[in-house]
């Protein structure tokens, strides 16, 4: 097991956003988290990544309690997140962004007198990642000049350049055209061969396509967990979420 959440709760003032969450994720699994808006999916992601501190419970990562670890430390442990809203380095090119992320994995970010952009080893590795995420035509384009869909691909590229052991993808297909969604599904499918992935998504087709197991969150509680077919046949999930989605 790579990640375990034990009796985890989080409140914002008097509003309980996460209530007694218990969740387990195994190595090389692709786990989907679904739920209506306001169910607490992004909060759960932010708690796992360390952007938010939870109130009660434990976050166990590779059998180590990481409750007190900052988000930077968690990223260095291998928990890397891609954000719901595109979040890049706008003035950097695709290549520079990926090279920067690699510098973190190699732990050379405090080097003062070596030239990052002319490091052949990092450069080759960056090109390899850029090819994998399908941005090879855009390696010298500025991040802010890319289309929305290509920026989502770059988001994932930056995350995988850190060689994560746990990749958290927050709505990777949000706002995408059908073609772009298809590309992202193909990309994540390829990644799921090598990485443990947790994915929050509204598009059920994407989730059914990618996730081995799905957790259903409703008003901060996990109300169901199972495989795609079980989710499809669950009356509870139909009533609480899929029914609403279909309306």
């Amino acid at each position, binding site marked *: 097991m790579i990640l375990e959440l034990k009796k985890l709760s989080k409140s914002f003032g008097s509003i309980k956003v996460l209530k007694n969450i218990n969740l387990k994720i195994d190595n090389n699994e692709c786990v989907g988290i679904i739920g209506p808006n306001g169910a607490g999916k992004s909060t759960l992601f932010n708690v796992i990544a360390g952007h938010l501190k939870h109130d009660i419970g434990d976050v166990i990562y590779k059998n180590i309690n990481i409750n007190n670890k900052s988000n*930077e430390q968690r990223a260095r442990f291998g928990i*890397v997140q891609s954000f719901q809203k595109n*979040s*890049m*380095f706008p003035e950097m090119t695709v290549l520079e962004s990926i090279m*920067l992320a690699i510098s*973190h994995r190699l732990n050379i970010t405090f080097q003062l007198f070596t030239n990052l952009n002319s490091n052949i080893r990092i450069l080759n590795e960056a090109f390899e990642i850029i090819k994998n995420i399908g941005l090879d035509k855009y390696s010298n384009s500025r991040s802010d000049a890319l289309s929305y869909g290509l920026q989502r691909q770059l988001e994932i590229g930056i995350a995988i350049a850190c060689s994560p052991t746990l990749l958290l993808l927050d709505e990777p297909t949000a706002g995408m055209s059908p073609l772009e969604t298809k590309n992202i599904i193909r990309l994540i499918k390829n990644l799921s061969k090598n990485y443990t992935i947790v994915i929050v998504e509204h598009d059920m087709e994407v989730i059914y396509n990618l996730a081995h197991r799905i957790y259903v969150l409703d008003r901060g509680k996990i109300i169901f967990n199972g495989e795609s077919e079980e989710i499809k046949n669950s009356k509870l999930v139909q009533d609480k979420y899929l029914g609403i989605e279909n309306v």
Partner: protein
Amino acid sequence: MDYMEDKMKAVNYNPRLRLHLFIVLVVSALISIFFGGYFTRFFIAEIAILSIFAMSLDFLAARGGLVSLGHAMFLGIGAYSTTIFILNLGISPFIATILSLLIGCFIGLLISYFIVVLNGIFFIMVTLALGEMFHAWVFTSELLGGSDGISGIIRPDISFMGIDMNDPFIFAIYSLLWMSLIYFILSRITDSPLGRNLDALRQNHMRLSAIGGYAKVYKIIAFTISSGVASIAGSLYVQLNGFISPELTHWTVSGEGLIMIIVGGIGSISGAILGASVVYILQHELSNFISWWMLIVGLLFILVVLFMQDGLWGLIEKLRLRLLKGKNKI
């Protein structure tokens, strides 16, 4: 943070153009030193020292995303510590400069530990307050000569090599060497993994943290380096003039430094040297003819901010691209 990020979209990074511009500027300075008279040489030394100060502000603003209105304090720390080392402790001026650099770095490190967590307008106001506190202290301190300042500061003595540092030609070359050294060090740092991370920090600190970047530590390092560089400028400034006055630590000096880097083009390093040269030459030349020269400099600054946010650097880059396009057409 958002406020300053909006104000700081124009940050330039082009290592090749940076080096080319630097070479042009240094060659121009050398020509002026060789063929100019006493005042020209003194003037070039002053510009070189101001350029070091401008580079310190540029590094902090462009790499760390931090705009300081109190950086003249470090100019003052370098200047006053050099003065004390030379006059009170009898330490040689060159060693005094090195010690001032270390003191500047140390104080920068201490201060930055507490203030780099602040963003945008809050960071600016705290640096302004710190700078003004320092200014008020030196203005009233008997040890530091109060409002009268201190005179009698000497330059490095290398007469055993047959070189007289009191010769403005030699001191201009000496200042230019320091400026070049600082330029090369800051350029190396800018291109290094740390420099690129500092750039990324200014652009999106949340994303940087999410991939494992220690935003606070990077900012502390940027502030410390910048403080040390400003202290060197202060140390050289008192050796050039042989005199230190509290005016050097006033916040308007930091403000002028910021004007220089905006006119030159933030983040380009050699743009800071260009900005310092242009603003200082303009100030000097205009003040010879008209009493309301500040109005013209202010107007120029407003025009640059409104229409040329990449500063003169941006203009040069555009011209270069146009020339390259023209060549390709032929």
